[in-house]
């Protein structure tokens, strides 16, 4: 009787070893191939097509009124010669803090070093909020009351070409958020953007670079209104 029971036991119990082997293999596969990237999202943007073929010249997208937004490194005071800015830029080259100004309005400082890789989300969020609040207020002052958003003066972002990308996109983001509040649309679809106010990055000013031209570019952006 006892012998019978034992035989039955052995038949029921399957051999687990191959299954465990395969499961370990799977586990190792997932361990090696997985990575945790932060959740990346997108800001949709449309390049203008209706400016003619020569839309690379600055004049063509010069806004009629003062909806210019300037972004440039902090610590460069106005009223200097281009050579001064060129020299400043060559010696520093790093933009820890930037300045942002709409038209001839007051400028604010953007604590850009808090936006970089090692910084905490709370600090980044605070900087983002600050820039948004400033630009929303400035843009509100310059509302023209057009019936359609696309008839409002286009906003042009004039960012110094040597700045880190994070400043330009943050300013763009703030203007888009302002427009989103005005239209109530998400502006995530290109079709929404066709009806929205134009927000453009100014085309590059310098072509066939010589390094000393950066001083001229800085001078122009710092003194532009």
């Amino acid at each position: 009787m006892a012998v019978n029971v034992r035989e039955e036991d052995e038949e029921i119990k399957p051999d687990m070893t191959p299954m465990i082997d395969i499961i370990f293999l799977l586990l190792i596969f997932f361990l090696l191939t997985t990575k945790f990237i932060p959740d990346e999202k997108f800001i949709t943007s449309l390049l203008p097509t209706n400016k003619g073929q020569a839309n690379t010249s600055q004049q063509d997208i010069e806004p009629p009124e003062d909806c210019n937004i300037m972004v440039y490194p902090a610590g460069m005071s106005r009223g200097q010669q281009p050579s001064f800015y060129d020299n400043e830029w060559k010696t520093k080259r790093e933009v820890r803090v930037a300045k942002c100004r709409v038209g001839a309005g007051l400028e604010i400082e953007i604590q850009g070093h808090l936006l970089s890789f090692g910084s905490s989300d709370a600090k980044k969020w605070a900087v983002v909020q600050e820039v948004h609040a400033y630009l929303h207020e400035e843009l509100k002052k310059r509302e023209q009351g057009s019936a359609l958003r696309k008839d409002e003066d286009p906003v042009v972002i004039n960012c110094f070409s040597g700045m880190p990308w994070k400043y330009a996109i943050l300013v763009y983001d703030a203007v888009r958020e302002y427009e989103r509040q005005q239209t109530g649309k998400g502006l995530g679809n290109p079709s929404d953007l066709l009806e929205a106010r134009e927000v453009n990055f100014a085309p590059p000013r310098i072509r066939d670079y010589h390094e000393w031209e950066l001083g001229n570019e800085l001078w122009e952006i710092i003194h532009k209104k």
Partner: protein
Amino acid sequence: MAKKKIEQAKDEIDLTPMIDMIFLIIIFFILAGKITSDLRPEKITVPPTKTALKTELPPGWSKVVINVAGTTQTSQFKGKPPRHTITIGKNATWTGDGYNDFSSYQKLRQFLDRVYNAADKYDDPNKTGIQLPMVAVEIRADSECEYRIVQEVQQVMSDTIDCFPDANGKHMLPKKHASPADMKSFIDIRFTSRKPKKD
């Protein structure tokens, strides 16, 4: 008899809890992780913004991811001209050194021409006569990358400038097209970004 049974049970380790745990770990990795994608190099940290959305592509559309890296940090390029890289997919990485190196833009334009020729087209809603490809371009630029690189990538995409030298050896001048139908413009851009958590 009873004694023998107990001894046998001691010999064999009970594997069930271990298998349970391993299954749990596997399921965790399947659900929480994303398999490494060569389209998105990890070394790029995208900038933080507030309005970024998860956007869906319209049916029939495809997407091209342009990874743009380069540095503005002094420590990274002391004495050398600032360098940038434009990466598409796994094997296509184009480097540009300094301000007067346009080779990366030229390679990008050649790549975009191929994408344009293969893509389905639609008429520009602004009635310019330009045939636009049903392709969205994701610009996944590093947060510390020089802004001029992103500017130039946008100009190259719109096909309004010529990254190849003209008769006088000048680069990046406005491009002359015989008719708007010749323009190979990509206009639909998705700037990659990440929304920081509030707390």
